């Protein structure tokens, strides 16, 4: 998984790229730290370039949500496609996290 963080606009936008799996645990932890340090309390994880997520990856998205909630920040997911979209749908994730199509 690769990522980029853009805090130039009104929200902090984190773009994930590639595959988010079990092996990305350490780098995703770093990403969460950066998100907590980002200037905006409104943050979006852009999934339009993410091609695959496994159960561990889904767990990491949930950790990000919880950590941001702990700081009264708001996290949403945007533009999932393909397998990622299917996994989010099957897991009814929109019940606990805002998903922008």
């Amino acid at each position, binding site marked *: 998984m690769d990522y980029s963080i853009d805090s130039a606009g009104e929200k902090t936008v984190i773009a994930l790229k590639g595959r988010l799996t079990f092996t990305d645990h350490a780098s995703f932890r770093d990403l969460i730290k950066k998100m907590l340090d980002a200037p905006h309390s409104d943050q979006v994880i852009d999934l339009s370039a993410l091609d695959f997520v496994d159960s561990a990856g889904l*767990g990491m998205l949930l*950790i990000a949500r919880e950590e941001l909630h702990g700081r009264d920040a708001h996290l949403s997911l945007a533009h999932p496609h393909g397998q990622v979209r299917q996994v989010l749908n099957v897991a009814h994730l929109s019940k606990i996290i805002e998903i922008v199509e």
Partner: protein
Amino acid sequence: MTGAPAMPQEEGGLGLNYSNARIMVVDDNQLNITLISALLRKSGLRNIETAANSEEALHRIEAAPPDLLLLDIMMPGLSGFDVCALLRKDPRFATLPIIMQTALNRPEDRAHAFSVGATDYIVKPLNPAELLARVRIHLENQALIRDLSLYRRRTSRELEMARSMQIRMLPSLGERQVMAERCGLSVSARFEPSSELGGDFWGMQPLDDGRALVYLMDFSGHGLNAALNTFRVHAMLRNWDFQGKTPAGALSELNDALCPLLPSGQFATMLLGYFDPESGGFSYASAAGTAPIALGPTLKPTCGPNAGLPLGIVPNVTYDDHRLELPPGSCLLLYSDAAIETEVDGTLWGEEGLLDFTIGECERQMALGSHDPEEFLTRLSRRLHGPRAQPLTDDLTALMLTRNIDVAH
């Protein structure tokens, strides 16, 4: 040679103490032996043995292997090169640190020493500080290697034991036999953890009301922490009261029980259902489990609905009940993520890939007039592993439930 630095007893915080390490010094020159031994003793190494020639050295090494060997090269009879080569042929001495000490100092001599398996090389006249530093570093390496291989052996023994415990936690053939007799439901199963331990498990239980409970659970991630979760939830489920509950109700209760147990980011997906021999239906609920596939002689393979919030994330979730009809002779395929999230022929297989494969296999078996769920599961596993039998990156569990034609109920 008198100003030798002392070898510290506390070794760089590693907690290693070499004073008892057994060092063997082999040299045909008595003066050299005396000098080296004195130097080593002065540095705190107490356990020094000496040998005046190669034959004596080999004899004593055989009787009691040292922790480190300081070996002269030019000796009458067998040379140090010969001794080194002989020792390295014996697996017992494959990792014994052998430091060659010699007056030979041409590049080809060094190359020769390393080619016969020397660990290190020191040139005479010996520099005391250099000799001690090299002895020390090789003893340290040796101790670390021993430590690591002991740790590795112990860990793999323990993982092996945990693995057999995990396999024993799954329903036995005897239990499956009881299920087939009481509920008319035969279960074939395949369980392949991707590492020593898996995050998947499944279970079944004939209930007093005549129904058969079947569930498949998949903890997020894999390896040790996912496996620990399977043990604790398995213990919980054994004493769980499923009587008179709808699948959705049971899942909702399980979710509430799991929420306080699982840390943030860990969850479980689950499919839980009851087969009712009276009505011939499988009613189930899914917490983001994979889509069950029903198939049979009179049944075109179809995926049942499977959406639902995974267990252990937030409490007070409601799930939906679904139902699949299982006419006599038809089957239900349940599986973990690995059966759809594996790359087959270079692309992600997905539900479509699995469904196509299942339809194909179903037609193949029907054309042969056979019904062999075990063969189906074997061929499914082979397809997922690919032609080069690649290891799977996630745990695989696959169950084939067959509603028997002659229901003894």
